[in-house]
């Protein structure tokens, strides 16, 4: 039992990671590695603990994550709806796909200044940015997923008189679910990055703003602490999504080999 667990945990890899941190600590302490603003890992830990106990980090992280999740959820709903429409109604696809391709080639970050201009330094602006970032992967994956449904499955639906809305609900959407989930995961990652940018150039709140102010007040430990927590939150959000999905859509995900 413990041995099986040990084999699954990458002990060697974790030791390497730990060794890497120790080396970093050592190099900074002994002054071999000398950048003016490179803190030692121990300094980052104390700074992080201070930020947590003062409540500053939880507040900022909460703000950033709330805006990300709000925009991303909105993007999921809109992306799946529009993607379904595009995939199932051929004229809609013909008369919109090229426009979407064109809009998509605009680098997403370049929209942040536009959003800041139009909506000002507000949380709505952040949500809009997160929405915009996440809606493309969800939309495109929905379209791709629905178009990849095996034609035999649709014939089975015809033979068994599963048609119209029931066909969409019982056959097409479940078959496309692994694709849609991939789109959602990608969208989540992109939203989080774009939210940070929006907070750095725009809204004076959240992790992005905290990073910028720590940079201006020359507190690299604080910045490291924020970077680590925001990375971890990204991992946790993704894991939550994957876990939730594998419970709710157990059959789909397992069948697609995503389990």
């Amino acid at each position, binding site marked *: 039992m413990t041995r099986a667990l040990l084999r699954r945990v990458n002990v060697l890899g974790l030791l390497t990671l730990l060794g890497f941190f120790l080396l970093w600590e050592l190099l900074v302490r002994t002054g071999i590695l000398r950048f003016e603003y490179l803190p030692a890992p121990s300094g980052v830990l104390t700074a992080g603990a201070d930020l947590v106990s003062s409540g500053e980090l939880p507040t900022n992280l909460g703000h950033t994550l709330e805006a990300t999740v709000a925009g991303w959820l909105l993007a999921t709903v809109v992306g799946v709806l529009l993607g379904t429409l595009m995939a199932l109604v051929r004229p809609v696809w013909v008369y919109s796909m090229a426009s979407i391709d064109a809009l998509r080639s605009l*680098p997403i970050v370049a929209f942040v200044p536009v959003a800041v201009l139009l909506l000002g330094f507000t949380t709505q602006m952040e949500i809009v940015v997160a929405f915009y970032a996440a809606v493309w992967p969800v939309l495109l994956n929905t379209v791709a997923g629905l178009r990849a449904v095996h034609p035999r499955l649709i014939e089975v639906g015809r033979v068994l008189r599963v048609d119209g809305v029931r066909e969409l609900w019982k056959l097409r959407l479940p078959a496309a679910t692994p694709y849609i989930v991939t789109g959602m995961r990608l*969208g989540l990652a992109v939203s989080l990055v774009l939210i940070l940018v929006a907070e750095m150039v725009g809204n004076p709140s959240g992790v992005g703003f905290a990073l910028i102010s720590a940079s201006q007040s020359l507190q690299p430990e604080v910045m490291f602490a924020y*970077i680590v927590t925001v990375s971890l939150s990204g991992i946790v959000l993704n894991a939550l999504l994957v876990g939730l999905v594998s419970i709710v859509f157990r059959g789909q995900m397992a069948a697609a080999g995503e389990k």
Partner: protein
Amino acid sequence: MSADAATTPLTPKESAGTTAARAKRRRGGAPLRGLLPLVLGLVLWQVLAPAQSPYFPAPSEWGRALLPLVKDGSLLTAIGWSFLTFVLGLLLATVVGAAIGALIGANRTVDRALGPTLESLRVLPAAALVPLATLVLGYSMQMKLLVVVLPATWPILLSVRTARRSLSPVLMDMSRTLGLGRGERVRKILIPALTPSMLLGIRIAAPLALIITLLVEIVTRINGLGGLLGFAQASFLTAQVYGLLVIAGALGFLVNWAVTHAEHAVSMRMTGGAAD
């Protein structure tokens, strides 16, 4: 970080029996008729936009707002800086990514040893690194490159690692029995065998590198196209922001087009199109 995602939708596996005609149609992408809503939207915008609108200046204003930047040469300089950062960043990412990818793909133990460290580097959101990088490295080209290279390395690294792992051991043994030296083996067997996967990684990394380049520039306003965008936004030059957005879009389109075609051309030559 994995903003690569946004530009690469998951495509369904092509069925084996794809005819040449269908492949061609697919490469052409969606029919051009689909541009209609975009064009219509722009025309409506032009017609309906109130004169001197602070938020939605008409598209014709965009060009006019860019004129001063064109005249004093700052637009061209900015594009130059962005492009230089992008190209250098992608180049470095390719070298680093391919080297590490080939290394950890060849040896399971090394892979396991470095796995968690690499993985924890991978999840760092590029945007969050910018303020830190400026603090440590200053507002410099090195700072820009560091932020661009870090995320752009992953697609290449992962792609090369997978390819190296699945490389038939026979290929390496064969070269040894033929008496090829170590250097020759790398040059004549390993590099050609891994090139397609490296190109595949580059195709995903390139748009990502461009996005991160603009991201660094927008956040730091150091130089480049993103810097101009940041300044225009801070000075409420709305029309200029839209104009620069279009230019950024054109650059993005160009990069996408170039890497897609380059990858296709090379992989066609190397595999006779079998990989397609």
